[in-house]
């Protein structure tokens, strides 16, 4: 199996997998979304909430905040169901507090975490608005969890793959350039009386070029053992860590099956 990174930045990783089975690639995709643990606020104790926002709405908003949960930050933290404390202990949960008096807009940066590393990824998320003399006072517990249980624990926002497109021209091609004009994604370009393929990974196989071609000499197909995989995260975990963790989870699952059989 071959890998090639096509594009990579802070929250996004696009790579090519060559020589893989579709079942394997799909397993990786599903585990990336559903079984890579992240941290999210799971329980909120509201001491005071004078704002116009309902308690449960506020608690829901807090739950959706992306919280830093890369390997370094979550080191030593265990899943709540593996912890024998019964409620909240430093081993399985991170307490956070929010104390604010209006008039102001309360942002995610106002949430004070007991752990310096485990805190909201973005400082600028507006949580609620407080008017004159209104107060909010709450404590929240962030815990590890997986996307299977609730979408707030999903590390990825876009996690998808597609087959690698194949585009070939027949011998009867007259280089008219109609296909290049029809391509909505700029994959084909017409330069010096010749049609050139610019960026094949961007092709969505829409067949616009095929329909624009009078002689129908363009062949569009895909290679079913070659994939373009895209992982985009909400910022809580870098995408390459999501992929590595997903591979670990898959290999653990495989080991379990071998044990049983």
């Amino acid at each position: 199996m071959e890998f090639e990174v096509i594009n990579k930045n802070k929250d996004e990783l696009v790579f090519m997998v060559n020589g893989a089975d579709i079942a394997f690639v799909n397993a990786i995709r599903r585990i990336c979304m559903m079984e890579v643990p992240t941290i999210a606020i799971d329980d909120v104790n509201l001491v005071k909430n004078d704002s116009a926002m309902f308690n449960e709405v506020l608690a829901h908003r807090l739950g959706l905040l992306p919280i830093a949960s890369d390997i370094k930050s979550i080191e030593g933290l265990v899943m709540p169901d593996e912890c024998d404390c019964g409620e909240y202990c430093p081993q399985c949960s991170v307490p956070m507090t929010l104390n604010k008096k209006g008039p102001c807009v309360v942002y995610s940066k106002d949430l004070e975490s007991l752990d310096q590393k485990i805190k909201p990824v973005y400082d600028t998320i507006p949580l609620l608005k407080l008017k004159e003399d209104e107060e909010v006072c709450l404590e929240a517990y962030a815990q590890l969890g997986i996307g299977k249980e609730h979408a707030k624990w999903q590390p990825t926002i876009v996690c998808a793959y597609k087959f690698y497109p194949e585009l070939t021209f027949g011998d009867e091609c007259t280089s008219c350039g109609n296909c290049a004009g029809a391509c909505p994604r700029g994959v084909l370009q017409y330069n010096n009386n010749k049609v050139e393929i610019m960026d094949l990974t961007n092709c969505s196989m829409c067949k616009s070029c095929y329909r624009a071609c009078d002689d129908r000499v363009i062949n569009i197909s895909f290679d079913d053992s070659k994939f373009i995989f895209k992982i985009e995260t909400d910022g809580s975990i870098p995408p390459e860590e999501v992929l590595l963790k997903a591979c670990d989870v898959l290999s653990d699952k495989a080991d379990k099956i071998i044990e049983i059989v």
Partner: protein
Amino acid sequence: MIPIRCISCGKPVSAYFDEYQDRIAKGEDPKAVLDDLGITRYCCRRMLITHVETW
């Protein structure tokens, strides 16, 4: 209040809301601002474009 995440894909769009509003108020083109903020998908773009701040 704007939803924390994009309803369709889950991108935390609310993190860019204040900057988006400020820049629109200064007269910048919404399209240019969204492109600059890196909000590329149309599901996320509509979250910011269509939001009306009421209270």
